[in-house]
């Protein structure tokens, strides 16, 4: 009756856009974080989750490395590091 329908969007996994990161990836230092969640609010990929210093986590499967979380962090607690600087590409 209709064209393509996506009946269960919640189940769709999307593209693994983490593979788009070519140079830099964000790394949480977890030192000065005050849990303001600004990084969560500006991530265009909605791939940061958590409540505070201990629980905030980036899903590297989707993070495109745009750097907005790092720019907005008022405590400079998110660094953009060379992709290969800490072991393999996540």
């Amino acid at each position, binding site marked *: 009756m209709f064209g*393509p329908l*996506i009946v269960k*969007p*919640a189940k*769709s*996994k*999307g*593209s*693994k*856009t983490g593979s*788009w990161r070519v140079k830099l990836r964000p790394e949480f230092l977890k030192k000065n974080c005050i849990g303001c969640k600004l990084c969560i*609010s*500006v*991530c*265009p*990929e*909605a*791939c940061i989750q958590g409540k505070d210093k201990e629980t905030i986590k980036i*899903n590297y*499967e*989707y993070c*495109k*490395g*745009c*750097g*907005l979380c*790092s*720019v*907005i962090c008022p405590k400079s607690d998110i660094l*953009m590091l060379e992709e290969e600087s800490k072991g393999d590409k996540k």
Partner: protein
Amino acid sequence: MDNKILFKPGHTACAGCAQSLAARLVIEAAGSNTIIANNTGCLEVFSTKFPDSAWNVPWIHSLFENCAAVASGIEAALIYLGKKDATNVIAQAGDGGTADIGLQALSGMLERGHDILYICYDNEAYMNTGVQRSGLTPFYTNTTTSPISARFPGNLRPKKPMPEIANAHGIPYVATASAGFPQDIQRKVKKALSIKGPKYMQIHVPCPLGWRHESGQTLAVAKLAVETGLYPLIEYENGKLSGARKFAQLKPVEEYLKAQGRFKHLLGDPESIKQIQAIADNNILKYNLKAEAQKSD
């Protein structure tokens, strides 16, 4: 706010795309009892790559020109079913889809009085098809259809005054917002949805690809547009200007222009910059963007 994720990762917007950020902020503010009709454009393309969808709310892709008409039908059906009061309807499109090809459908939606929030994601050109100028492309922008030449420094027309055009329909709420002010976007979406009738919101969303700036600069560029007076954040309620974000000190437009490749050709050209400064100065006057200096003594 819902705990459910309403706009999911895995969409294919460029890194640092402000339209993808603003779209998520809008649906998170609107909540899960929302139906969206979406014109063609980057947002539609990157958020619904079949068989996937980033949207965890009912969402329909209209044609390029008619999301306002499709949303009007959805609203009418909800009224018939007695479900309108519990459901938000959002129509959304890019600047080309809004100010050019979709203007007729939008005007009809505003004039007929549908209870719909219309959102224009203004990245100031037709990005999805390769950066062609639209009615919302700013003065002297370098785009693929307003290239710079010996005679012309880019796009020769100022931005179409869409907020005022919407306001002229006599609708209850019109607002502009910017990706550089995320909380302000969400406040305005919530306010708009608390008002019955047609609402128009236009959100300034930098596009790293078309504006030619680094992806990490998206928020800074968006902020500069507001802080120079080139993209005033204003609200109209029932036809009257009811709010404007004011600044004690507005920045010179050059700071905004030099942050982007699409204006690079203007940098050695004080005469052109003066003309763009005049647009900002006019906005500052018209919307009263200058905050009164606080007396410190």
